[in-house]
């Protein structure tokens, strides 16, 4: 009890044992897990490898961190990773509720819990946060800054996603470079930065291709792979992520060549229009099996990132960082004015030939819930489709049991969609 639990070590070790297991069990799926090795292993080994470890939030361009040869640790990636382990996530959630309201987003509760409990043993060298994605994060990041007591750089994210906003971000990213130069004692190595931007572009191009594959009927890729789209927030520019999407693309292409979908009998093309259900990801597999309902695209991981147009243009790259940040997963829909969110919903519906719409609404995300009726009405008007509104907690599995969620989806599928369970 008294020994300090090292969460990052635990996550890194879990990936290792998972990889060992997969090597024996199904080596063809190994690639899905190797990316997690890059994610957690790099963080755990940062100091051993002589690199600076930097806690970051969304909209902090990972490319810039990589260009300084530092390791970013996206705080929000921890809650989504822990969501499938209620015994751990609930520990941090309960811990956090001493300080924050129980209605706070569970992602942020876990952030507070992991940092304040001391389980993030390895102290970071710096903390860089932005004022995105939402009120929850805005409320806790400064508190985390206070708690950590490490050099911190804070970036104000603009409300609207327009040129003024990109410029505003670009100016601050330039200051962030100065901050990183002071932190590392090194000037920004533009050659290295260009390399990273190149990897970032390649990855984004592949992500776009992968997304395009998903537009096919039947969808050549399974629902589950959508979960990892969020890795972009932390890892874009990392070769590990590039490799992950290369593999994903290969799988998709090979399914297409064989003329099959990822799910043998695709009957329904489903979208989830708010958060991902990390706490109950198995629901996606169950929907595929039970109804032939495949999650084709979701509004959280939806990917349509702009590229670095010219990595050699030292002014423009910062504007592009701004554009990319505001078009990244979660940020593109969940942050800023609702109109942009509604446009994104429309794009998902339109581009992916969706015929079942579900607002799987994370209860902590109150402002997207406050747009739920607009989402529902937009879909009804334009696509003449109903939308299931279901409250769930994306990171706290205790909110609704798997059985309850299945019950709700079944009822909807069978009574409104008219689906019959596949025996």
């Amino acid at each position, binding site marked *: 009890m008294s020994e300090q639990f090292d969460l990052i070590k635990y996550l890194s070790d879990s990936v290792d044992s998972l990889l060992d297991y997969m090597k024996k069990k199904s080596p063809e799926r190994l690639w899905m897990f190797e990316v997690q090795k890059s994610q957690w292993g790099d963080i755990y080994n940062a100091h051993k490898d002589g690199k600076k470890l930097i806690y970051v939030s969304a909209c902090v361009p990972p490319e810039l961190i990589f260009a300084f040869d530092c390791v970013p640790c996206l705080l929000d990636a921890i809650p989504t990773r822990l969501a499938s382990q209620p015994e751990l996530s609930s520990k941090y959630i309960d811990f956090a*509720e*001493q300080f924050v309201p129980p209605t706070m987003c569970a992602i942020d509760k876990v952030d507070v819990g992991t940092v304040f409990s001391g389980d993030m043993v390895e102290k970071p060298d710096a903390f860089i946060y932005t004022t995105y994605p939402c009120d929850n994060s805005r409320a806790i990041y400064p508190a985390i800054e206070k708690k950590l007591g490490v050099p911190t750089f804070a970036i104000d994210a603009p409300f609207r996603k327009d040129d003024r906003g990109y410029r505003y971000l670009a100016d601050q990213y330039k200051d962030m470079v100065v901050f990183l130069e002071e932190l590392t004692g090194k000037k920004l190595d533009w050659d290295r930065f260009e390399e990273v931007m190149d990897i970032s572009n390649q990855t984004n191009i592949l992500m776009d291709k992968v997304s395009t594959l998903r537009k096919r009927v039947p969808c050549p890729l399974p629902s589950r792979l959508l979960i990892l789209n969020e890795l972009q927030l932390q890892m874009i520019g990392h070769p590990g992520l590039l490799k992950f999407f290369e593999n994903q693309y290969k799988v998709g292409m090979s399914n297409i060549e064989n003329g099959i979908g990822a799910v043998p009998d695709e009957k329904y093309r489903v979208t989830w229009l708010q958060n991902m259900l990390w706490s109950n990801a198995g629901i996606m597999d169950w929907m595929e099996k039970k109804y032939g309902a495949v999650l084709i695209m979701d509004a959280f991981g939806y990917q349509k990132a702009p590229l670095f147009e010219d990595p050699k243009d030292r002014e423009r790259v910062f504007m592009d960082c701004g554009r990319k940040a505001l078009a990244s997963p979660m940020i593109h829909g969940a942050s800023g004015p609702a109109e942009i969110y509604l446009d994104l919903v429309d794009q998902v519906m339109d581009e992916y030939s969706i015929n079942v719409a579900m607002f799987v609404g994370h209860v902590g995300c109150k402002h997207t819930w406050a747009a739920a009726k607009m989402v529902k009405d937009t879909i009804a008007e334009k696509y003449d489709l109903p939308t299931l509104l279901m409250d769930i907690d994306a990171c706290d599995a205790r909110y609704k*049991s798997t059985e309850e969620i299945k019950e709700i989806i079944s009822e909807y599928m069978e009574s409104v969609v008219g689906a019959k369970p596949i025996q």
Partner: protein
Amino acid sequence: MSKASETEYWRWAEHQWKNPDIPDWQGSLVTAGVDIGSTSTQAVIMADGKLYAYSSIRTGADSPNSAIDAINTAMEGTGLSLPDIDYTVGTGYGRVNVPFADKTVTEITCHARGANFIYGSGVRTLLDMGGQDCKAIHCDETGKVTSFMMNDKCAAGTGRGMEVIANLLSVPIGEIGEISLRVEEEPEPVSSICVIFAKTEVTRLMRAGWPLEKVLASYCRAMAIRVVRLLERNGIEKDFAITGGIAKNAGIVRRIENMLGIEALKTESDPQIAGALGGALVAKDLIEKKGSQNFQKDRRRVNG
């Protein structure tokens, strides 16, 4: 339609007690506290700062009558009558309905004061679980409240919920705690302790064939978790004590202790009277502050 004949498993036992060590109260400063809770009412009488007599009865539909019943029951066999009581403090949720009270004080203040008397001046953290609310109180060595926190909006996880479960499962409420401790391993807590949903969930567990002790353990655990959250939010410092009816429920108490890693102080007295006792103590303070010599009985007496 009426269900009058049904056994009422939720009912607490009524009782009355008189201090055998105080043969006669005459010549003493006699004060009283009456605590009208949503489910039970207690009256405590003190003579010169010593616990003299008390009663605990069910709160009826008419609070003023309950107050009168409680004080009369407490006075039984003491030779006291209402005019003999120098000062009375009404407390609890129905405190404004104590017709013979000289002053009303909230149960939060009274419980802290009462706990200080029952458990000693070392008590810093106090948990009071009432019929429809739950309070985490922090107090100083004189029994004065320094901070407190109460459940909001929803009465999930309070005494009333326990009563509903007792009735549903036909288990006398006094036995729930003991039975719930008969499990070898702690089950998952019920996911909702909203009074109505918990009823559904408990029913579901029974239908799924869970043994009674496991169902009760699951429910008690959920309640304990909720209470511990409240305590943690208010801050925990030793010594720790529990007052109110729930202090008698070992199933809840033991679980709270395990979760906090702190043992609650035990007492020979009745923890349910803490509120009324605190009232009587506050009454004594008030008189003493006014100066007992020129103290005048200026009681507003309302016809019960």
